[in-house]
């Protein structure tokens, strides 16, 4: 699984390409944790190229969310496809994350 990192001003965008599943979770989590530490929390996960998230992927997103919650922040997600939105709704986790239509909107939320 390819994970692209992109800087948007002072915000780091992380875009996993492909389904976020068990085998890719450790690498994804490591990258996001590094990005959070480097940017002091100014980080957005772009799921526009992620068609599916399995239970491990979901757990990873929750872990990252809790990591940010300790500093009063919320994990920001953008570009969610319908399938991922439905997974979050069904698991009642949609409200755990800040969701944005696209990266631009998510980056603007840091202003």
């Amino acid at each position, binding site marked *: 699984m390819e994970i692209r990192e992109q800087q*948007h001003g002072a915000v780091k965008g992380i875009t996993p390409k492909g389904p976020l599943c068990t085998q890719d979770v450790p690498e994804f989590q490591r990258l996001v944790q590094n990005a959070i530490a480097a940017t*002091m929390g100014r980080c957005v996960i772009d799921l526009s190229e992620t068609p599916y998230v399995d239970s491990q992927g979901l757990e990873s997103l929750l872990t990252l969310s809790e990591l940010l919650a300790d*500093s*009063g922040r919320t994990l920001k997600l953008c570009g969610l496809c319908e399938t991922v939105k439905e997974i979050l709704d069904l698991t009642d986790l949609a409200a755990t994350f800040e969701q944005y239509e696209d990266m*631009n909107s998510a980056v603007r939320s840091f202003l």
Partner: protein
Amino acid sequence: MGRFLRKLVPGHASLISSALVMSTAVLLSALGALWWTVQQAQVAESHASAARTLQAIAQTVGAQLERGIADRDLAGIRMIVLEAARGGRLSMCRVVLGDGSVLADSDVGAITSKTIPEKLPPVSSAALGEHRFELAIPGRGTAILEMQPSAESAEPQSLQFAFAGIAVGALVAVGAASVVIRRRGRPFTLVADALSAVASGERDLAALELADSTGGVGTAWNEFLRELARHRARERLESVASGRVNDSAHDDLALKLVDSMWHGVVFADEEMRIRYCNGAAAIFLGGTRESLAGTPIAECLKSSETGEGLLRLSDAKNRGRVVFECGVGEGDVRTVLRVSARSVAAGGYAILLEDVTQQRVADRSKNAFVEQATHELRTPLTNIRLYVEALIDNPNSEVATRSQHLNVVNQEVRRLERIVGDMLSVSEIEAGTLKLALHDVRLPSLFTDLEAEFAGPARAKNIALKFDLHPKLPTIVGDRDKLILAITNVIGNAIKYTPEGGTVRVSARPVDSDLVVEVADSGIGIRAEDIERVFERFYRAHDPRVEKIVGTGLGLALARDVLRLHGGDISVQSTPDRGSTFALKFPIRSPMSRAA
């Protein structure tokens, strides 16, 4: 507490003096009463003693007088009376007959009878009394010996007045002392009431304060309450600093609220050492809450602004807010923190940390954009003005020259259109309102237009511009204007950054379900460290050759946004000094699929 006691002592002194006054009054009253009793006893004793003396005198003198009367020795009788009055220290001593006539008297002037009758007039028993004794003369009758003790042995009337004065004085003193004590004791009564209110659960210290009119005790009590409030605040700060949650649900909620804030909150003591920080502050200060406890703020926020700001904050006269910005952390983009700090009444400082990095980046970008856009707009406008002026000045110039001038004007107007289009698109993207107007887009026609547009600029720079198009380019669904904007920006850049005599090759071909447009040039290329950032808005590579050429730093950012809105993306491969190849890829959505 010391101040409180010092203030309380004068109050006690007044109370003690009042108590002394009262005690003295009571003592005086008691003494007066005792004196009164003693004097009364003495007077009674004096009376009794006088009565006994009179009795003894009556017995001694009476017998002599009886003999004298019997012998009718008037002179002897009078001598005896005088002697008795003198010897017995009597104020009056006389012998009276039953008819009231005075036979002998210590006061010679009071004698009324000059002889002793043969037969004495009878004396009624009623005439006898305490100071009147019967003289019985055998064969002649009875007479009366009347004596009066001297005034010295009489009841001392003035003394009684003195006693009464003392008693009245004592009563007045007691009354005055009572009033004074009640007045002095009023603040203590109010303090007792306040303590009762505390016992009843009153927690608001302000409600327990006494009015200023209650004097020194009230002031001391109020000072004590303020000291208690400061102590409570310090205790709360201590409990927060040590991570202890107070048993009060209120404090617990406050702590949770502070912890959930996305701004950093720090409590520092008087020496600017961290006593408490919330999670956000811990991240900003580069540590954990535990490791940061006791660390000087200046060590966590190392910058000249911090030193100066903390210096202003620690100025004892400064009660206002001190605000400064400082950079923390490492990396490409240093975090900019806005630090707002002020001293708190409980002692120490409250510091708020806000992450304003993105705002500052945006500010810088906008400033750079305005600067670049102004420059970018001025160049075509100048060209247009010059060529139009040339046409006006030379109305009879050759047709070929006029045509050339008009062509330049046309190109510059198109350039202006592009710049304005870019700026509008940027503002739309910034505002989140950039939307695609989807229509059928005939790709062959689109590339024909592009070829026509860039033929002139390429020729002007002697660049070989080639369009290598697939013979069967499909009709797709997309926003034609936006796609032209994206591809135009990439081709425009290629021509702009390719030296004269170079080549630019544009190819378009379907690959699987995508359309891939490649723009390859033999230009100056992009350095590895800039490749990742060329798609950022307002970013321009730090290369003198790039900086020489005007540009907004928006073209590639816009191209990427447009392609992503179409579900595609843009990538670049480049070798410095040899050229770059931009690949624009977006999915082909045919009109049929849109209909489906």
